[in-house]
Protein backbone atom coordinates (compact mmCIF):
# COMPACT_ATOMS: atom_id res chain seq x y z
CA UNK A 1 0.00 0.00 0.00
CA UNK A 2 1.26 3.49 -0.79
CA UNK A 3 1.05 5.70 2.22
CA UNK A 4 -0.17 9.14 1.19
CA UNK A 5 2.26 11.87 1.97
CA UNK A 6 1.01 14.13 4.75
CA UNK A 7 3.26 17.14 4.20
CA UNK A 8 1.06 20.04 3.14
CA UNK A 9 1.95 21.50 -0.24
CA UNK A 10 4.48 18.79 -1.07
CA UNK A 11 3.47 16.24 -3.64
CA UNK A 12 6.58 14.10 -3.77
CA UNK A 13 6.16 10.42 -3.11
CA UNK A 14 8.73 7.97 -1.91
CA UNK A 15 10.87 7.32 -4.96
CA UNK A 16 9.31 3.89 -5.40
CA UNK A 17 6.29 2.08 -4.03
CA UNK A 18 8.13 -1.20 -3.87
CA UNK A 19 8.97 -2.52 -0.42
CA UNK A 20 12.66 -2.46 -1.25
CA UNK A 21 14.05 0.96 -1.85
CA UNK A 22 17.52 2.20 -2.53
CA UNK A 23 17.91 5.73 -1.26
CA UNK A 24 19.81 7.25 -4.13
CA UNK A 25 20.47 5.76 -7.52
CA UNK A 26 23.50 6.70 -9.55
CA UNK A 27 22.99 9.00 -12.49
CA UNK A 28 22.16 6.92 -15.52
CA UNK A 29 21.93 7.74 -19.19
CA UNK A 30 18.63 8.85 -20.65
CA UNK A 31 17.51 11.32 -18.00
CA UNK A 32 14.91 13.99 -18.72
CA UNK A 33 17.70 16.55 -18.41
CA UNK A 34 19.27 15.21 -21.60
CA UNK A 35 16.36 16.77 -23.48
CA UNK A 36 17.29 20.24 -22.32
CA UNK A 37 18.29 22.69 -25.00
CA UNK A 38 21.44 23.70 -23.10
CA UNK A 39 22.50 20.04 -22.90
CA UNK A 40 22.02 19.62 -26.60
CA UNK A 41 23.94 22.80 -27.30
CA UNK A 42 26.84 21.74 -25.10
CA UNK A 43 27.12 18.45 -26.94
CA UNK A 44 27.19 20.02 -30.43
CA UNK A 45 30.19 18.60 -32.26
CA UNK A 46 32.76 20.88 -33.90
CA UNK A 47 31.90 19.73 -37.42
CA UNK A 48 28.36 21.04 -36.98
CA UNK A 49 29.81 24.47 -36.32
CA UNK A 50 32.07 24.28 -39.34
CA UNK A 51 29.19 23.16 -41.52
CA UNK A 52 27.09 26.10 -40.38
CA UNK A 53 29.90 28.54 -41.11
CA UNK A 54 30.52 27.02 -44.54
CA UNK A 55 26.84 27.30 -45.48
CA UNK A 56 26.69 30.94 -44.42
CA UNK A 57 29.87 31.82 -46.29
CA UNK A 58 28.99 29.86 -49.40
CA UNK A 59 25.51 31.27 -49.77
CA UNK A 60 26.40 34.69 -51.25
CA UNK A 61 28.58 32.85 -53.77
CA UNK A 62 25.59 30.88 -54.98
CA UNK A 63 23.14 33.74 -54.95
CA UNK A 64 25.52 36.20 -56.51
CA UNK A 65 26.17 33.99 -59.54
CA UNK A 66 23.24 35.67 -61.28
CA UNK A 67 24.01 39.23 -60.23
CA UNK A 68 26.80 41.72 -60.29
CA UNK A 69 27.10 41.85 -56.49
CA UNK A 70 30.01 39.66 -55.41
CA UNK A 71 30.55 37.61 -52.30
CA UNK A 72 33.45 39.81 -51.30
CA UNK A 73 31.26 42.87 -51.44
CA UNK A 74 28.67 41.18 -49.22
CA UNK A 75 31.20 40.34 -46.58
CA UNK A 76 32.81 43.73 -46.81
CA UNK A 77 29.40 45.18 -46.02
CA UNK A 78 29.05 42.86 -43.03
CA UNK A 79 32.54 43.79 -41.86
CA UNK A 80 31.73 47.48 -42.13
CA UNK A 81 28.61 47.17 -40.03
CA UNK A 82 30.04 44.68 -37.52
CA UNK A 83 31.02 47.19 -34.76
CA UNK A 84 27.61 48.86 -35.04
CA UNK A 85 25.73 45.55 -34.88
CA UNK A 86 27.71 44.22 -31.94
CA UNK A 87 28.10 47.23 -29.67
CA UNK A 88 24.73 48.79 -30.41
CA UNK A 89 22.87 45.52 -30.88
CA UNK A 90 24.16 42.26 -29.50
CA UNK A 91 25.41 43.95 -26.35
CA UNK A 92 21.80 44.83 -25.60
CA UNK A 93 20.69 41.26 -26.19
CA UNK A 94 23.19 40.23 -23.53
CA UNK A 95 22.15 43.02 -21.17
CA UNK A 96 18.44 42.33 -21.63
CA UNK A 97 18.87 38.59 -21.11
CA UNK A 98 21.10 39.11 -18.07
CA UNK A 99 18.73 41.43 -16.24
CA UNK A 100 15.61 39.53 -17.27
CA UNK A 101 17.24 36.38 -15.89
CA UNK A 102 18.34 38.10 -12.69
CA UNK A 103 14.93 39.59 -11.94
CA UNK A 104 13.05 36.55 -13.24
CA UNK A 105 15.10 34.22 -11.04
CA UNK A 106 14.71 36.35 -7.93
CA UNK A 107 10.94 36.52 -8.27
CA UNK A 108 10.71 32.98 -9.62
CA UNK A 109 12.39 31.51 -6.55
CA UNK A 110 10.02 33.39 -4.26
CA UNK A 111 7.03 32.31 -6.35
CA UNK A 112 8.28 28.70 -6.42
CA UNK A 113 8.61 28.64 -2.63
CA UNK A 114 5.14 30.16 -2.34
CA UNK A 115 3.82 27.36 -4.54
CA UNK A 116 4.71 24.77 -1.90
CA UNK A 117 3.36 26.76 1.02
CA UNK A 118 1.01 24.83 3.31
CA UNK A 119 -1.25 27.89 3.32
CA UNK A 120 -3.69 27.98 0.45
CA UNK A 121 -3.90 31.74 0.54
CA UNK A 122 -0.23 31.89 -0.42
CA UNK A 123 -0.11 28.77 -2.59
CA UNK A 124 -3.06 29.47 -4.86
CA UNK A 125 -2.11 32.97 -6.09
CA UNK A 126 1.44 31.72 -6.70
CA UNK A 127 0.17 28.76 -8.72
CA UNK A 128 -2.15 31.03 -10.65
CA UNK A 129 0.57 33.56 -11.53
CA UNK A 130 2.96 30.77 -12.49
CA UNK A 131 0.49 29.13 -14.82
CA UNK A 132 -0.62 32.42 -16.41
CA UNK A 133 2.86 33.62 -17.26
CA UNK A 134 4.22 30.21 -18.12
CA UNK A 135 1.53 29.56 -20.68
CA UNK A 136 1.30 32.98 -22.31
CA UNK A 137 3.04 33.75 -25.59
CA UNK A 138 6.18 35.71 -24.82
CA UNK A 139 5.51 38.22 -27.55
CA UNK A 140 2.10 39.01 -26.12
CA UNK A 141 3.61 39.59 -22.68
CA UNK A 142 6.23 41.84 -24.26
CA UNK A 143 3.59 43.90 -26.07
CA UNK A 144 1.50 44.27 -22.92
CA UNK A 145 4.46 45.39 -20.81
CA UNK A 146 5.74 47.77 -23.46
CA UNK A 147 2.38 49.40 -23.89
CA UNK A 148 1.38 49.31 -20.23
CA UNK A 149 4.55 50.79 -18.80
CA UNK A 150 4.78 54.56 -19.01
CA UNK A 151 7.51 55.75 -21.29
CA UNK A 152 8.74 58.23 -18.70
CA UNK A 153 8.50 58.55 -14.94
CA UNK A 154 8.82 61.51 -12.65
CA UNK A 155 11.12 60.98 -9.67
CA UNK A 156 11.63 63.95 -7.32
CA UNK A 157 10.56 66.46 -9.96
CA UNK A 158 12.85 65.05 -12.59
CA UNK A 159 11.46 63.34 -15.64
CA UNK A 160 13.29 60.16 -16.45
CA UNK A 161 12.65 58.42 -19.72
CA UNK A 162 12.48 54.65 -19.43
CA UNK A 163 14.58 53.15 -22.20
CA UNK A 164 12.90 50.51 -24.34
CA UNK A 165 15.39 47.84 -23.35
CA UNK A 166 14.37 48.24 -19.69
CA UNK A 167 10.78 47.57 -20.64
CA UNK A 168 11.92 44.56 -22.62
CA UNK A 169 13.64 43.29 -19.47
CA UNK A 170 10.36 43.53 -17.57
CA UNK A 171 8.45 41.85 -20.38
CA UNK A 172 10.86 38.94 -20.66
CA UNK A 173 11.35 38.44 -16.93
CA UNK A 174 7.68 37.48 -16.51
CA UNK A 175 7.78 34.16 -18.39
CA UNK A 176 11.24 33.47 -16.91
CA UNK A 177 9.87 34.08 -13.42
CA UNK A 178 7.02 31.64 -14.02
CA UNK A 179 9.27 28.97 -15.46
CA UNK A 180 11.86 29.32 -12.68
CA UNK A 181 8.98 29.05 -10.24
CA UNK A 182 8.15 25.67 -11.75
CA UNK A 183 11.82 24.65 -11.71
CA UNK A 184 11.99 25.38 -7.99
CA UNK A 185 8.73 23.61 -7.24
CA UNK A 186 9.75 20.62 -9.34
CA UNK A 187 13.16 20.37 -7.70
CA UNK A 188 11.66 20.51 -4.21
CA UNK A 189 9.10 17.86 -5.11
CA UNK A 190 11.81 15.65 -6.58
CA UNK A 191 13.34 15.18 -3.13
CA UNK A 192 11.82 11.98 -1.70
CA UNK A 193 9.25 12.64 1.00
CA UNK A 194 11.31 10.45 3.35
CA UNK A 195 13.69 13.37 3.73
CA UNK A 196 10.87 15.54 5.08
CA UNK A 197 9.77 12.78 7.42
CA UNK A 198 13.27 12.09 8.70
CA UNK A 199 13.77 15.78 9.40
CA UNK A 200 10.35 16.02 11.01
CA UNK A 201 11.10 13.09 13.30
CA UNK A 202 14.30 14.89 14.34
CA UNK A 203 12.14 17.81 15.52
CA UNK A 204 12.98 20.09 12.59
CA UNK A 205 10.28 22.60 11.81
CA UNK A 206 9.00 22.91 8.27
CA UNK A 207 11.06 26.04 7.64
CA UNK A 208 14.23 24.46 9.00
CA UNK A 209 13.65 21.34 6.93
CA UNK A 210 13.16 23.36 3.77
CA UNK A 211 16.25 25.56 4.19
CA UNK A 212 18.66 23.10 5.79
CA UNK A 213 17.71 19.75 4.30
CA UNK A 214 15.63 20.11 1.14
CA UNK A 215 16.97 23.20 -0.65
CA UNK A 216 20.66 22.24 -0.39
CA UNK A 217 19.75 19.00 -2.17
CA UNK A 218 17.71 20.88 -4.77
CA UNK A 219 20.46 23.24 -5.76
CA UNK A 220 22.25 20.80 -8.02
CA UNK A 221 19.00 19.66 -9.59
CA UNK A 222 18.09 23.22 -10.45
CA UNK A 223 21.27 24.14 -12.32
CA UNK A 224 20.52 22.37 -15.65
CA UNK A 225 16.95 23.65 -16.10
CA UNK A 226 17.98 27.09 -14.89
CA UNK A 227 20.76 27.44 -17.44
CA UNK A 228 18.47 25.97 -20.03
CA UNK A 229 16.04 28.80 -19.44
CA UNK A 230 18.85 31.29 -19.73
CA UNK A 231 19.79 29.91 -23.14
CA UNK A 232 16.17 29.97 -24.27
CA UNK A 233 15.78 33.51 -22.98
CA UNK A 234 18.86 34.73 -24.81
CA UNK A 235 17.58 33.17 -28.01
CA UNK A 236 14.24 34.90 -27.44
CA UNK A 237 15.66 38.41 -27.08
CA UNK A 238 15.35 39.11 -30.86
CA UNK A 239 11.60 39.18 -30.21
CA UNK A 240 12.25 42.67 -28.90
CA UNK A 241 13.12 43.80 -32.41
CA UNK A 242 9.43 43.55 -33.28
CA UNK A 243 8.83 46.25 -30.70
CA UNK A 244 11.55 48.53 -32.00
CA UNK A 245 13.96 47.88 -29.14
CA UNK A 246 17.49 48.36 -30.44
CA UNK A 247 19.16 44.98 -30.45
CA UNK A 248 20.98 42.63 -32.79
CA UNK A 249 18.20 41.93 -35.28
CA UNK A 250 16.86 45.49 -35.33
CA UNK A 251 20.30 46.83 -36.17
CA UNK A 252 21.04 44.09 -38.71
CA UNK A 253 17.87 45.05 -40.52
CA UNK A 254 18.84 48.72 -40.43
CA UNK A 255 22.27 47.87 -41.79
CA UNK A 256 20.81 45.85 -44.66
CA UNK A 257 18.48 48.70 -45.49
CA UNK A 258 21.41 51.10 -45.49
CA UNK A 259 23.09 48.78 -47.99
CA UNK A 260 20.13 49.17 -50.38
CA UNK A 261 18.35 46.02 -49.24
CA UNK A 262 20.40 43.71 -51.43
CA UNK A 263 19.03 40.16 -51.10
CA UNK A 264 22.61 38.79 -51.15
CA UNK A 265 23.12 40.37 -47.74
CA UNK A 266 20.35 38.49 -45.94
CA UNK A 267 22.21 35.27 -45.32
CA UNK A 268 25.54 36.81 -44.25
CA UNK A 269 23.86 39.22 -41.83
CA UNK A 270 21.29 36.89 -40.32
CA UNK A 271 23.69 33.96 -40.48
CA UNK A 272 26.12 36.04 -38.47
CA UNK A 273 23.35 36.76 -35.95
CA UNK A 274 22.73 33.03 -35.65
CA UNK A 275 26.40 32.29 -35.15
CA UNK A 276 26.90 34.95 -32.53
CA UNK A 277 23.98 33.60 -30.48
CA UNK A 278 25.39 30.10 -30.65
CA UNK A 279 28.86 31.35 -29.85
CA UNK A 280 27.49 33.12 -26.78
CA UNK A 281 25.37 30.25 -25.48
CA UNK A 282 27.79 27.42 -26.22
CA UNK A 283 30.38 28.24 -23.53
CA UNK A 284 27.58 28.82 -21.04
CA UNK A 285 26.13 25.40 -21.80
CA UNK A 286 29.58 23.82 -21.41
CA UNK A 287 30.18 25.65 -18.14
CA UNK A 288 26.84 24.42 -16.82
CA UNK A 289 27.88 20.84 -17.30
CA UNK A 290 31.19 21.50 -15.55
CA UNK A 291 29.30 23.16 -12.70
CA UNK A 292 26.94 20.22 -12.38
CA UNK A 293 29.87 17.83 -12.19
CA UNK A 294 31.43 19.84 -9.41
CA UNK A 295 28.30 19.67 -7.30
CA UNK A 296 27.73 16.05 -8.21
CA UNK A 297 30.93 14.94 -6.45
CA UNK A 298 29.57 15.90 -3.06
CA UNK A 299 26.37 13.94 -3.33
Amino acid at each position, binding site marked *: *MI*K*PNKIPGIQSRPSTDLPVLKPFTAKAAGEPEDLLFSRWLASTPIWAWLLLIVIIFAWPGVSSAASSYTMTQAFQALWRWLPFIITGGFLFNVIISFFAMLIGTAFGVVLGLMQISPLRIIRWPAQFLTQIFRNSPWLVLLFIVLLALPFEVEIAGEIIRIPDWVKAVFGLCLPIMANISEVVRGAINSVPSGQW*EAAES*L*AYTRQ*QTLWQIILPQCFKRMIPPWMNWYAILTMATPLCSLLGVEELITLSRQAIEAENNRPELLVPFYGFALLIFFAYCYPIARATIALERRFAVKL
Partner: protein
Amino acid sequence: MTESSWDESQPIVSIKDVHKSFGNLEVLKGISMDVMKGEVICIIGPSGSGKSTLIRCINALNDIQAGSITVEGIEVNDSKLDKLELRKKVGMVFQQYNLFPHKTALENVMMAPIKVLKQSPSDVESRARALIEKVRLQGKEDSYPGELSGGQQQRVAIARSLAMNPDIMLFDEVTAALDPETVKEVLVTIKDLAEEGMTCMLVTHEMGFAKEIADHIYFTDRGVIVEHGPPATFFADAKDERTKEFLSQIL
Protein backbone atom coordinates in the same frame (compact mmCIF):
# COMPACT_ATOMS: atom_id res chain seq x y z
CA MET B 1 -2.55 15.91 31.04
CA THR B 2 0.78 17.63 31.61
CA GLU B 3 4.23 16.19 31.55
CA SER B 4 4.77 16.55 35.27
CA SER B 5 1.93 14.15 36.06
CA TRP B 6 3.82 11.28 34.46
CA ASP B 7 6.07 8.99 36.47
CA GLU B 8 7.83 5.78 35.65
CA SER B 9 5.22 3.56 37.21
CA GLN B 10 2.85 4.59 34.41
CA PRO B 11 3.19 3.45 30.81
CA ILE B 12 5.71 5.54 28.87
CA VAL B 13 3.58 5.09 25.74
CA SER B 14 -0.11 4.55 26.18
CA ILE B 15 -2.32 3.93 23.16
CA LYS B 16 -6.07 3.84 23.67
CA ASP B 17 -8.64 2.88 21.06
CA VAL B 18 -6.85 4.57 18.17
CA HIS B 19 -8.69 4.94 14.86
CA LYS B 20 -6.98 6.15 11.70
CA SER B 21 -8.20 6.37 8.10
CA PHE B 22 -6.60 7.41 4.87
CA GLY B 23 -9.64 8.74 3.05
CA ASN B 24 -12.15 5.91 2.99
CA LEU B 25 -9.58 3.31 3.92
CA GLU B 26 -9.68 2.59 7.63
CA VAL B 27 -6.19 1.46 8.59
CA LEU B 28 -6.41 1.35 12.38
CA LYS B 29 -9.69 0.20 13.90
CA GLY B 30 -9.33 0.63 17.62
CA ILE B 31 -5.82 -0.21 18.74
CA SER B 32 -4.80 -0.12 22.38
CA MET B 33 -1.50 -0.96 24.01
CA ASP B 34 0.67 0.15 26.90
CA VAL B 35 4.43 0.20 26.91
CA MET B 36 6.41 0.57 30.12
CA LYS B 37 9.76 2.32 30.34
CA GLY B 38 12.60 0.04 29.29
CA GLU B 39 10.32 -2.43 27.56
CA VAL B 40 11.01 -3.74 24.08
CA ILE B 41 7.91 -4.47 22.09
CA CYS B 42 7.64 -5.89 18.60
CA ILE B 43 4.69 -5.41 16.31
CA ILE B 44 4.31 -8.07 13.66
CA GLY B 45 1.67 -8.81 11.09
CA PRO B 46 1.00 -9.10 7.37
CA SER B 47 1.64 -6.12 5.05
CA GLY B 48 -1.10 -3.55 5.10
CA SER B 49 -2.18 -4.48 8.60
CA GLY B 50 -1.46 -0.96 9.86
CA LYS B 51 1.62 -1.63 11.94
CA SER B 52 3.80 1.03 10.30
CA THR B 53 0.96 3.51 10.45
CA LEU B 54 0.55 2.85 14.16
CA ILE B 55 4.21 3.46 14.91
CA ARG B 56 4.22 6.65 12.81
CA CYS B 57 1.25 7.94 14.81
CA ILE B 58 3.29 7.77 18.01
CA ASN B 59 5.57 10.63 16.96
CA ALA B 60 2.78 12.45 15.13
CA LEU B 61 4.07 11.80 11.62
CA ASN B 62 0.53 10.61 10.99
CA ASP B 63 -2.43 12.13 12.75
CA ILE B 64 -5.22 10.01 14.19
CA GLN B 65 -8.95 10.53 13.90
CA ALA B 66 -10.05 9.11 17.24
CA GLY B 67 -8.56 7.74 20.43
CA SER B 68 -5.60 8.85 22.44
CA ILE B 69 -1.84 8.33 22.38
CA THR B 70 0.22 9.62 25.27
CA VAL B 71 3.99 9.68 25.41
CA GLU B 72 5.34 10.39 28.90
CA GLY B 73 2.01 11.97 29.64
CA ILE B 74 1.99 14.19 26.54
CA GLU B 75 -1.21 13.77 24.53
CA VAL B 76 -0.20 13.33 20.89
CA ASN B 77 -3.73 13.67 19.50
CA ASP B 78 -3.97 17.34 20.45
CA SER B 79 -4.06 20.29 18.10
CA LYS B 80 -1.90 22.26 20.56
CA LEU B 81 0.71 19.50 20.71
CA ASP B 82 4.27 20.77 21.17
CA LYS B 83 5.84 18.67 18.43
CA LEU B 84 9.37 19.73 19.35
CA GLU B 85 8.87 18.44 22.91
CA LEU B 86 7.41 15.15 21.65
CA ARG B 87 10.08 14.53 19.06
CA LYS B 88 12.88 15.18 21.51
CA LYS B 89 11.54 12.20 23.46
CA VAL B 90 10.80 9.92 20.53
CA GLY B 91 13.48 8.88 18.02
CA MET B 92 12.55 7.16 14.80
CA VAL B 93 14.43 5.03 12.31
CA PHE B 94 12.94 4.38 8.87
CA GLN B 95 12.97 1.50 6.44
CA GLN B 96 14.72 3.61 3.80
CA TYR B 97 17.26 5.17 6.25
CA ASN B 98 16.44 8.67 4.90
CA LEU B 99 19.90 9.98 5.67
CA PHE B 100 20.61 13.46 4.37
CA PRO B 101 22.65 12.69 1.24
CA HIS B 102 24.44 16.04 1.10
CA LYS B 103 25.97 15.62 4.57
CA THR B 104 28.64 13.22 5.85
CA ALA B 105 27.81 10.51 8.38
CA LEU B 106 29.13 12.66 11.22
CA GLU B 107 27.26 15.75 10.03
CA ASN B 108 24.07 13.70 9.74
CA VAL B 109 24.42 12.78 13.41
CA MET B 110 25.41 16.29 14.52
CA MET B 111 22.92 18.37 12.56
CA ALA B 112 19.72 18.05 14.56
CA PRO B 113 21.18 18.64 18.06
CA ILE B 114 23.01 21.75 16.80
CA LYS B 115 20.29 23.20 14.59
CA VAL B 116 17.20 22.17 16.51
CA LEU B 117 18.30 21.87 20.12
CA LYS B 118 20.92 24.66 19.71
CA GLN B 119 23.52 22.70 21.63
CA SER B 120 27.16 23.69 21.40
CA PRO B 121 28.83 22.17 18.33
CA SER B 122 31.90 20.98 20.23
CA ASP B 123 29.83 19.03 22.79
CA VAL B 124 27.67 17.59 20.05
CA GLU B 125 30.68 16.56 18.03
CA SER B 126 32.26 14.55 20.84
CA ARG B 127 28.89 12.91 21.53
CA ALA B 128 28.35 12.21 17.83
CA ARG B 129 31.77 10.57 17.52
CA ALA B 130 30.97 8.40 20.53
CA LEU B 131 27.65 7.41 18.95
CA ILE B 132 29.30 6.51 15.67
CA GLU B 133 31.69 4.33 17.60
CA LYS B 134 28.75 2.81 19.45
CA VAL B 135 27.15 1.74 16.16
CA ARG B 136 30.59 0.39 15.14
CA LEU B 137 31.25 2.79 12.29
CA GLN B 138 34.47 4.43 13.44
CA GLY B 139 36.45 5.52 10.39
CA LYS B 140 33.27 6.24 8.40
CA GLU B 141 32.65 9.67 9.96
CA ASP B 142 33.52 11.57 6.80
CA SER B 143 31.80 9.26 4.32
CA TYR B 144 28.71 10.45 2.52
CA PRO B 145 25.63 8.22 2.76
CA GLY B 146 26.02 7.29 -0.90
CA GLU B 147 29.39 5.73 -0.10
CA LEU B 148 28.04 3.50 2.68
CA SER B 149 26.29 0.15 2.45
CA GLY B 150 22.64 -0.14 3.43
CA GLY B 151 23.49 -1.62 6.81
CA GLN B 152 26.02 1.12 7.51
CA GLN B 153 23.55 3.81 6.48
CA GLN B 154 20.93 2.35 8.75
CA ARG B 155 23.36 2.38 11.67
CA VAL B 156 24.17 6.03 10.97
CA ALA B 157 20.42 6.65 11.00
CA ILE B 158 20.19 5.00 14.42
CA ALA B 159 23.08 7.12 15.69
CA ARG B 160 21.43 10.22 14.25
CA SER B 161 18.27 9.47 16.17
CA LEU B 162 20.17 8.71 19.38
CA ALA B 163 21.99 12.04 19.17
CA MET B 164 18.74 13.71 20.20
CA ASN B 165 18.81 11.69 23.47
CA PRO B 166 15.36 10.19 23.03
CA ASP B 167 13.60 8.16 25.71
CA ILE B 168 11.83 5.94 23.19
CA MET B 169 13.06 4.59 19.88
CA LEU B 170 10.70 3.61 17.09
CA PHE B 171 11.98 1.25 14.40
CA ASP B 172 9.85 1.01 11.28
CA GLU B 173 10.87 -2.18 9.43
CA VAL B 174 14.46 -1.04 9.62
CA THR B 175 15.93 -4.18 8.09
CA ALA B 176 13.39 -4.66 5.30
CA ALA B 177 15.44 -2.80 2.68
CA LEU B 178 18.78 -4.37 3.61
CA ASP B 179 20.83 -7.10 2.03
CA PRO B 180 20.59 -10.29 4.10
CA GLU B 181 24.26 -10.12 5.12
CA THR B 182 23.93 -6.61 6.55
CA VAL B 183 20.72 -7.26 8.47
CA LYS B 184 22.63 -8.76 11.37
CA GLU B 185 24.85 -5.74 12.02
CA VAL B 186 21.78 -3.54 12.37
CA LEU B 187 19.99 -6.02 14.62
CA VAL B 188 23.06 -6.25 16.87
CA THR B 189 23.00 -2.46 17.22
CA ILE B 190 19.33 -2.51 18.20
CA LYS B 191 19.96 -5.33 20.63
CA ASP B 192 22.72 -3.32 22.34
CA LEU B 193 20.29 -0.46 22.74
CA ALA B 194 17.57 -2.68 24.15
CA GLU B 195 20.00 -4.17 26.64
CA GLU B 196 20.97 -0.71 27.85
CA GLY B 197 17.36 -0.18 28.83
CA MET B 198 16.13 1.95 25.95
CA THR B 199 12.39 1.68 25.40
CA CYS B 200 12.06 0.28 21.88
CA MET B 201 9.07 -0.27 19.65
CA LEU B 202 9.81 -2.26 16.53
CA VAL B 203 7.78 -3.10 13.48
CA THR B 204 9.59 -6.09 12.10
CA HIS B 205 9.46 -9.14 9.93
CA GLU B 206 12.45 -10.72 11.66
CA MET B 207 10.63 -13.29 13.81
CA GLY B 208 13.78 -14.81 15.26
CA PHE B 209 14.94 -11.40 16.34
CA ALA B 210 11.56 -10.48 17.80
CA LYS B 211 11.56 -13.70 19.78
CA GLU B 212 15.03 -12.95 21.09
CA ILE B 213 14.71 -9.35 22.23
CA ALA B 214 11.03 -8.55 22.69
CA ASP B 215 9.40 -8.36 26.11
CA HIS B 216 6.04 -8.36 24.44
CA ILE B 217 4.81 -9.15 20.94
CA TYR B 218 1.73 -7.72 19.28
CA PHE B 219 0.21 -9.30 16.19
CA THR B 220 -1.87 -6.92 14.09
CA ASP B 221 -4.10 -7.80 11.18
CA ARG B 222 -6.51 -5.55 9.26
CA GLY B 223 -6.20 -2.70 11.71
CA VAL B 224 -6.74 -4.51 14.97
CA ILE B 225 -4.51 -6.27 17.49
CA VAL B 226 -5.42 -9.90 17.08
CA GLU B 227 -3.22 -11.34 19.76
CA HIS B 228 -0.39 -10.32 22.04
CA GLY B 229 1.80 -11.81 24.69
CA PRO B 230 5.38 -12.44 25.77
CA PRO B 231 7.38 -14.19 23.03
CA ALA B 232 7.59 -17.53 24.82
CA THR B 233 3.83 -18.01 24.91
CA PHE B 234 3.09 -16.06 21.74
CA PHE B 235 5.18 -18.22 19.42
CA ALA B 236 4.59 -21.54 21.15
CA ASP B 237 0.95 -21.21 21.92
CA ALA B 238 -0.89 -18.87 19.54
CA LYS B 239 -4.63 -19.05 20.05
CA ASP B 240 -6.11 -17.10 17.17
CA GLU B 241 -6.46 -18.75 13.75
CA ARG B 242 -5.07 -15.72 11.91
CA THR B 243 -1.96 -15.65 14.12
CA LYS B 244 -1.40 -19.35 13.60
CA GLU B 245 -1.72 -18.99 9.86
CA PHE B 246 0.65 -16.02 9.74
CA LEU B 247 3.23 -17.76 11.90
CA SER B 248 3.01 -20.95 9.87
CA GLN B 249 3.73 -18.99 6.70
CA ILE B 250 6.63 -17.07 8.10
CA LEU B 251 8.44 -19.48 10.42
